[in-house]
């Protein structure tokens, strides 16, 4: 085939130009423009002012909590989300459909509602909190609470990414591996897991990204003690309430940059890992 242009061969359906233009316009208007405004707003500060805001101890503590809790929550979700997806795909049990539908609940629920519910359950006198209290484990109003809230809202991302790829693993492959002498553990490690890894990675990325941006559910359970349980989005809101728009924009810019770098690197790693599979699918 002759390479006419640098673009991929367009599909038989007409309208490539129209759709590309539409997509670019929408992305610009809804995503890029506000982000550009944020950068511009930040640029109106001097370097000294900027550094003072973003490197203040309170800000540094909030980054640690926001990114740390999101990371832990996304890791937990990767493990448990995989198990949930596995159970839903591989086994048939009464109530499977209901459980499957419940997975999406955190998507639909206003995040504030989940935050209040979690606080009620994990508070010192709550349903679960009262049993943890004697062991000295405090969930509500600590970083643990933040992690729990982020785990709740991130779970559906992992489950929904992994489910289709688990369905795709053919039973025949497992049968083949078994006749070749592989143990169930070996089959899982060498046959099932490699086919699920890309989906698991994208589920992790989505859950992580969602965790960094989460606000509603966290502020209720976090307690919002400065330096301890204050997440960056909350700090931004506080700045806004103090009419410190420049400070808010500076913090927002830092979050934006860090999220972008992290998501980009995850995607790069994923693309590198997937190369074999992509080549295989071609």
């Amino acid at each position: 085939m002759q390479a006419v242009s640098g673009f991929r061969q367009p599909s038989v359906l007409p309208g490539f130009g129209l759709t590309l233009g539409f997509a670019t316009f929408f992305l610009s208007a809804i995503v890029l423009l506000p982000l550009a405004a944020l950068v511009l707003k930040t640029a109106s500060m001097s370097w000294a002012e900027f550094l003072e805001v973003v490197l203040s101890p309170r800000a540094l503590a909030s980054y640690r909590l926001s990114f740390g809790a999101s990371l832990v929550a996304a890791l937990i979700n990767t493990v448990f989300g995989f198990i949930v997806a596995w159970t839903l795909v591989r086994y048939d049990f009464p109530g499977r459909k209901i459980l499957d539908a419940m997975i999406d609940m955190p998507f639909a629920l206003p995040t504030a509602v989940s935050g209040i519910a979690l606080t009620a359950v994990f508070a010192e006198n709550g349903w679960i909190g009262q049993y943890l209290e004697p062991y000295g484990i405090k969930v509500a109003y600590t970083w643990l609470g933040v992690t729990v809230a982020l785990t709740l809202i991130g779970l559906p991302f992992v489950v929904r990414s992994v489910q289709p790829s688990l369905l795709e693993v053919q039973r025949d492959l497992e049968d083949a591996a078994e006749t070749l002498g592989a143990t169930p553990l070996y089959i899982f490690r060498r046959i099932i897991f490699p086919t699920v890894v890309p989906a698991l990675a994208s589920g992790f990325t989505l859950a992580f990204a969602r965790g960094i941006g989460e606000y509603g559910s966290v502020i209720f359970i976090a307690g919002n003690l400065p330096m301890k349980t204050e997440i960056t989005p909350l700090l931004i809101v506080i700045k806004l309430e103090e009419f410190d728009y420049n400070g808010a924009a500076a913090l927002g810019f830092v979050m934006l940059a860090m999220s972008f770098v992290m998501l980009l690197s995850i995607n790069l790693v994923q693309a590198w890992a997937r190369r074999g599979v992509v080549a295989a699918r071609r």
Partner: protein
Amino acid sequence: MSITLDQVTKQYQGNPVVNDVSLAVAEGEFFVLLGPSGSGKSTLLRAIAGLTAADHGRIALFGRDVTQVSAREREVGFVFQNYALFRHMTVGENIEFALRVRRVKPAERARRRKELLELIGLPGMDDRLPTQLSGGQQQRVAVARALAHKPKVLLLDEPFGALDAKIREELRRTIRSVQRELGITTVLVTHDQEEAFALGDRLGVMNFGRLLETGRPTELYTRPATRFVATFLGAANLLLRREARSGSDLAPAGPEAQTDSPLRDRRDQEVVAMLRPEEAELAPDRDALRTTFLGYGHVEELQFTGALERLRIRMGLEGAARSSDGETSAMPPVWIDVTRTQPEQRAFPLASGQLVAVGTRRIHVLPTPLSSFTVCAESRESAARLMENPWLVDLTIRMQTRLSAQVEPLVAKDGASPVVAPAGVAVVTAGPDCPARVRRLLARGVTPVLCLPEDAAPPSRVIVHFAGQVARRATLAVTASLLRHVPAEAVFLGILPGDSSERTRTAGLRQLLDVRSEAQAGHGLDVRTELRLGERIEELLRELEAQPGQMLILGLPEPGSLPDSFEALLTQSPGWSVLLA
């Protein structure tokens, strides 16, 4: 024997998918399991591999009972229809998989990989990914992967199913030569008879979960014992033929055609004859035939297919399977399929609608005692009701045979001319009048007789019981023939008096096992055995009443007579059918 199956049974939701299959495959043999889809052949293969657990029965590989052994430890190679290659591994890694699992050293692994790639004709393909290969190449890799750990048995589940005709043939040749070179015992599952003939040292044909017949390809093709095998292995015309007591005008093809029961001599015998399309000869008239004359017919369809010409001849009244019985006959007009080679076509060119004489070079008479069904009733209405019974209709279609009716009064009137004895299996309505009907038929030498409730459903279980040993052989033949068309589990039920001594019990048990091995040897049919103690009729009734939808095949103690005590089995029947033989 390298693979021994003993009464292997597998059920899915109560339906037997594999039904009492016993089989022995010799070392180094290429055995092909052939059957239509849903016949249980793949399930049986998976049971041999250990991928599916058998519900009942034993599986042994090289004398070692592996029934409870997992697939992992059975040391078999398995090839799947859709290749089932690991797509995230290269060809080399796929082939080495079994060796890696066994922690074989890298040097040895590489040596074996090279050896196998050469064996399947893909040297140097180690680093390709499976999806970079064509379907045929992928399946070759799958074969190499299955052979890497030097299994003692190679199992192939429709390995050519997903390939096109040309590649299929090429791969077929590769697999045959690999199998010969390694001398490995191989079982291949297919639904394609051409493939089965090309590959198999021996074939086994399955239908409804039962292994119907096993034998060498030529054996099964020329002398099938069952209708199913006759029609499944190539095209076949099944003809019903009445033979007089003193032989017939149709030359029997083999010793199977000889009558084996003295009872049969008392009336005209109806047999099922198989005529292969290529064994028919066409000529302008009877005198021009060089072979046995069968009848005249009109050419109805004519198809040119390259090497062969296919014809469909509608036989006239002089046709082979003319029905000469009773008042009504549900028999459709008889068609005969004929194929002719180019030289034959040149010698006698034909056009549609032309009248031709049909001759037969070779006819094979199937050894089945169930030739056709004749409903015997006192009124047209009851005959019609019985003829509409869905199970009977279904059975007739499955057996590709005729269902006709014969109406005559229960008590013959004086002066009424005796009607010809019904052909094949006589079917009567179960109920209070049933014993009288049965007696009248038996007196005229009609066997077997099927007593069917008007609303009878297909049986889920068939009980076989011999009240005497005289008619055992005939009953066994009837049983074997029926079970091949009924997807139900079956059991030989022996009943001994409750107060019988230890010695009688042992003898009874031995007799039962004798019956089983006789059925196995004579009909290739394996059936379970059970022994009961008690009064015969009571035990049978208890067994039949235990669950609905059962059928009893009863071997009568004296041929041609029905003891009074047996009447209860026929009159009390609310839902079961009884086949008296």
